């Protein structure tokens, strides 16, 4: 007698139907071995179905912390487009491309530039990114949202270099990511002042984007009287949006 072994699993859990099910029914009437197997298998499945869901746990926290630590250590973006920067001395840095698979069009040159920038953060001026962080938000901004972001600073009499309206609950990117964000916004806007008060990774009308908030006074050293928000495409570093407001 040929046993329908390949059909019995589906027979037991109900996924078998139609002619196949009818055929198994007929076989079972004549085959004690298969009847016994189906009985055991049904019992085994029923036991498994009684298993409760395990207690909830947070894996995202430790996973992201570990990835963040690894990225900080590598001082570069994620592995699939990582370039390695090797500092030969405290001031002189040499970036060596060890792997650069294409992940799409556009961002390659900028990513390389950002990482080189990370290896030599003082290039281009005295200002550095020390203390500046990249907020990782899941917000999808539109123009009204960008204006609202600028509006957070309106009416503040003593805006400081700290991110006054920053989302304290948002995760923070690595320093290399912050460097890349600033580099991207600078590339998008030739007249970008280059000294953002706040950097955000989010999206703009569905497109992953960087947002830079800048506070400026009428002259260097004077209190800020203007806030501007600059929005650049995360991948291509093209300009997406801009707004400004009097504080």
């Amino acid at each position, binding site marked *: 007698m040929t046993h329908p*072994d*390949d*059909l*019995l*699993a*589906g027979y*037991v*859990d109900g*996924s078998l139907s139609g002619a196949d099910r009818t055929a198994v029914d007929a076989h079972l009437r004549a085959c004690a071995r298969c009847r016994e*197997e189906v009985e*055991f*298998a*049904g*019992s*085994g*499945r029923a*036991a*498994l*179905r*009684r*298993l*409760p*869901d*395990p*207690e*909830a*746990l*947070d*894996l*995202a926290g*430790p*996973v*992201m912390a*570990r*990835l*963040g630590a690894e*990225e900080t250590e590598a001082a570069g*973006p*994620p*592995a*699939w*487009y990582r370039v390695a920067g090797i500092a030969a001395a405290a001031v002189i840095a040499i970036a060596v491309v060890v792997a650069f*698979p294409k*992940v*799409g069009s556009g*961002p390659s040159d900028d990513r390389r530039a950002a990482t080189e920038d990370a290896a030599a953060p003082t290039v281009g001026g005295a200002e550095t990114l020390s203390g500046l962080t990249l907020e*990782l*938000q*899941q917000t999808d901004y539109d123009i009204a949202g960008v204006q609202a972001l600028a509006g957070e600073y309106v009416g503040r009499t003593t805006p400081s270099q700290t991110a006054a309206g920053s989302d304290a609950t*948002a*995760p923070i*990117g690595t320093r290399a*990511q912050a460097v*890349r964000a600033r580099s991207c916004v600078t590339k998008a806007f030739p007249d970008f002042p280059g000294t953002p008060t706040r950097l955000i*990774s989010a*999206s703009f009308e569905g497109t*992953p984007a960087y947002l830079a908030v800048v506070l400026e006074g009428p002259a260097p050293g004077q209190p800020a009287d203007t806030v501007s928000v600059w929005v650049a495409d*995360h*991948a291509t570093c093209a300009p997406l949006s801009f707004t400004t407001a009097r504080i």
Partner: protein
Amino acid sequence: MSEPDAILLRRARQGDAAAFGGLVERHQTRIYAVCLRILAHPDEARDASQEAFITAYRKLGQFRGDAAFTTWLHRIAVNACYDELRRAKRRPKLHATESDDRAPEPGPPSPDPADEVAGTIDVARALAEIPEDFRVVLVLADVEDMAYDEIARVLEVPVGTVKSRVHRGRIALAKALAGEPGRAPGTSEGGR
């Protein structure tokens, strides 16, 4: 957030760590459940789950999108479990002559608190006693409710092999629960 996996994946591949964090949060419960039922130890399951997500992050650039993200992620998680099982087998030998404070491998697996509440410790322990290949397909089929063809894609084996392992695995589990010692009869795969 209700963004589809595909959107979060696209953002994650562009370097958006928060998007990947969203994927972890969305899938962590299911992946941990799979690892817990395969490994039977909460701590090992937690380690394997974390390792699976770390591996997934590193391999995001290799994900071609011709399979569902969940299928791909389950494949990585199952492989992480197999790695953990291999490590667990080596562990007693590695530590047999050492006098460190590491406890010897316990006989029965440590239960998940939810199992204690539900009174299903015996089922979890019986599951841990049956052959690994059977255990894996049973977890995917009867705990995760995954279809046979998807299990076949996760494990990269023919769907007939999955059906055979599921059937033999259920029988083996039932016999283990009934207290029959050793490997239950009828648990060979018969050429599948």
